[in-house]
């Protein structure tokens, strides 16, 4: 993974479209907030400030299990059910993960109006379809399992 710092002062090419710059701005802001939330909630979890749903002592017994058995053994939630568990240290971390998952959707939502205004129908249709796919994935309806 080549990590490049999301710079506010990064070189902006004159060949870059307006919607690409808008996408980049929202991606930058969303990613920064997402990382902060991810690290902050983990600190709360690891410090024991919020009691976890599965205690640290018990965790090694469960993390070797496939996800279905893990959920059955711990009574953990699927889909958006984690929201009800969000006060517990471990599931609190899902806020940051979910936020990072929302960033791309928000970026697509941001570029739709300028694309429609430019009557760039093909590109707008592709962006709209991608947004629909991401929303379906995030809806919680697609969970799979063994």
């Amino acid at each position: 993974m080549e990590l490049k710092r999301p710079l506010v002062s990064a070189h902006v090419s004159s060949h870059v479209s307006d919607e690409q710059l808008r996408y980049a701005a929202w991606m930058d802001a969303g990613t920064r907030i997402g990382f902060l939330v991810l690290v902050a909630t983990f600190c709360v979890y690891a410090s024991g400030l919020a009691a976890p749903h599965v205690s640290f002592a018990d965790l090694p017994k469960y993390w070797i299990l496939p996800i279905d058995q893990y959920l059955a053994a711990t009574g953990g939630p699927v889909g958006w059910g984690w929201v009800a568990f969000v006060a517990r240290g471990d599931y609190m971390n899902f806020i940051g993960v979910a936020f990072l998952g929302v960033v791309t959707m928000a970026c697509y939502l941001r570029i739709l109006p300028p694309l429609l205004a430019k009557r760039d129908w093909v590109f707008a249709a592709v962006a709209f379809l991608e947004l629909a796919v991401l929303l379906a994935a995030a809806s919680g309806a697609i969970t799979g399992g063994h």
Partner: protein
Amino acid sequence: MPPSTLRFAPLALAALCLCVPHAACAADGPGSAAVAWWVWPIALFVVTFLLGVVAVLGGVGGAVLFVPIVSGFFPFHLDFVRGAGLLLALCGALAAGPSLLRSGMASMRLALPLALVGSIASIFGALLGLALPASVVQTALGATILAIVALMLRTQGREAAPAAKPDALANALKMHGIYHDPATGADVEWRARNTVAGLATFAVIGLLAGMFGLGAGWANVPALNILMGVPLKLAAGTSSFLLSVIDTSAAWVYLNRGAMLPILVVPSCVGIMLGARIGARLLRTAPTRLIRRTVLILLVFAGLRALLKGLGIWN
């Protein structure tokens, strides 16, 4: 870390990986409660930090090393490791994305149609990975990692000639443009070719990314450059942006399934990102050819370990 000592980073990583299971098996098997829980996030942080350094220097994505190594040498179930691998790749892609988009080194014009196909396929891949028995996924992961090594060896140092003429679909999707190359100071005109084959390739890449949690940078760049005729620099930048979309779809499936262990995800993401920062700084001075070779050996080792673990030969 002095650059001359960097050649030992992959060796240190291999030694750490071999030590971890010995520590874990102190009592009644991997993941035993005999090992204090806090050992694992610290070990993960150290290993992923080194992975971050060697991944940048080796020119590979972090997740392609993370998934086989952590699933092979740590006690976490493969379901959690794949979820963490996707999130790790997503974090890196999101961090790199804004500057790549602003500088024009990534093209949304090129990426969006490919990302649409890739993200649909990655959802199916994630569902498939979560539905299949772990041994089957582990075996397939091992085989895939070994195939990736073969692909990397085959495409190493190769750069395809830019596409001279776009095809009809590329024209319809306006998959062409100009980017500014800061190295040469020139504006480079580009266009895509073989769009149908490119879309089909990204469907396969998305499927594998979702199924194994590997990210997909290892395949994106050769697909964009060699197959679709996109200049190498634009292909590399666009690949990173593509990851942010493709991995988001699959990551949601793992998150909704509950296959996210914070104790695995957060230390790994932080470790690999810090390591990648160090790696990026050392890129100019480190003996990259040697490290790249060692990374390939590490991948072969991790791939074989995954394959043999999946087949029940080396547990």
